[in-house]
């Protein structure tokens, strides 16, 4: 039946290059489709209505795959969580990416879910965001300006502005996420909650990273997921840990500080009290694991 209130999609595009894709975006009112695992569910739930144009980006080869150049690793927006899980070279240089991918949904979801979709969807519980924040990653955004593709780079820690919200402008395509290849001695860990190992939207997730030398942790990064409107760099916890000998007292102080960093809510998945408890337990577990290995 013809619907009057829902104008519906007027054009479908499946560009084969970034240049073509950003020209479609320049027309305005475009809905981007990658793996579809968030889009389908959110359209069905009424949280997203389609723009005039539906643009399927899955045919853009330039957006696929992992590469390394000049000491930086680049992960294309269309790289799936399965691609990350199966990439032995990537797991060798950045084990925390495989460890996180391994906790992500089910294999069928991982086969479709892309890194770009996980970042732009900007869920406070988005799992791949946590290790990428630990790695000080940047995202690259492309748009069409003055007859050419123009790109800008945004630090991932400045990318998220609220649940489902980012600094990406409507005419921008997320093309890749990049980060410096971690130096020797860099340790990073990820943990997420949930009664089942997989298919669990994180009640709380946490990540810890730093360089451990002679028992002292430096360049500390602490990231907490699902305890604030966006995934969070936990500044108080980082300060409590930076340059300290990673012993029992430091671990307890870091875990306590992390609880001060977060502002969890009560919702259907868990109470704020329980989320605070999980933050403390995860922090202790992750820091102990870093100290012991």
């Amino acid at each position, binding site marked *: 039946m013809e*619907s009057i209130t829902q104008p519906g999609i007027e054009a479908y595009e499946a560009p084969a290059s970034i240049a073509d894709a950003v020209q479609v975006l320049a027309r305005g009112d475009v809905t981007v489709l990658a793996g579809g695992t968030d889009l389908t569910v959110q359209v069905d739930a009424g949280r997203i209505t389609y723009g005039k144009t539906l643009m399927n980006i899955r045919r853009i080869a330039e957006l696929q795959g992992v590469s390394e150049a000049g000491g930086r690793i680049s992960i294309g927006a269309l790289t799936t969580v399965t691609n990350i899980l199966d990439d032995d070279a990537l797991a060798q240089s950045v084990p925390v990416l495989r460890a996180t991918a391994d906790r992500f949904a089910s294999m069928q979801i991982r086969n479709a879910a892309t890194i770009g979709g996980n970042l732009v969807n900007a869920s406070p519980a988005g799992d791949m965001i946590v290790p990428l924040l630990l790695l000080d990653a940047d995202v690259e955004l492309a748009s069409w300006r003055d007859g050419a593709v123009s790109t800008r780079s945004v630090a991932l820690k400045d990318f998220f502005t609220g649940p489902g919200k980012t600094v990406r402008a409507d005419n921008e395509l997320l093309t890749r996420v990049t980060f410096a290849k971690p130096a020797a001695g860099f340790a990073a860990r990820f943990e997420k909650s949930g009664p089942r190992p997989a298919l669990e939207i994180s009640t709380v997730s946490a990540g810890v990273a730093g360089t451990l030398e002679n028992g002292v942790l430096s360049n500390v990064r602490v990231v907490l997921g699902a305890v604030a409107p966006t995934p969070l760099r936990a500044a108080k916890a980082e300060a409590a840990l930076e340059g300290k000998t990673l012993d029992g007292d430091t671990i307890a102080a870091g875990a306590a500080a992390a609880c001060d960093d977060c502002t969890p809510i009560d919702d259907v998945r868990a109470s704020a009290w329980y989320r605070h408890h999980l933050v403390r337990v995860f922090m202790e577990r992750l820091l102990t694991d870093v100290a012991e290995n």
Partner: protein
Amino acid sequence: MSLKTEVSFTLNGRAVQVTVPVDMNVLTMLRDELNMTGTKYACGEGECGACTVDVDGETINSCLMYAVDCEGRAITTIEGLRTADGLDPMQKAFVDHGAIQCGFCMPGMIMQAKHLVAKNPNMTDDDLRRGLEGNVCRCTGYYKVFDAVKDVVRGTAEAAE
């Protein structure tokens, strides 16, 4: 009404052309447009795996994939497993082990099990459990399912020797 477009792809080895609304999912296209009702609809949001199909050698939840994205791809559904010789070895193992009760989850379960064996013929019991995490079954308690797949894994390993 949504815009429609034509998609061409290979379905169970045969070329198919179908005109679909651009926001239709693969599951609805298979069941309602192509009358291929082997693939099941249960949760419709990626949680249960009943709608699992193989796309270019990867399994996905067909309730989440857009039909327009099938263009140029090769899709295999449960209907594609049966050959002139009869049931696929995986289907046969499920039958032999009594691993099927109401059967509703089984098209997806069997597609995923086949994918797991193809991806890793040497999988461990843990790989198997983890690999079927996205397939919910209300009836069997999974043990007979695991036994059936393990039989096929053993057979594949022996055949390779």
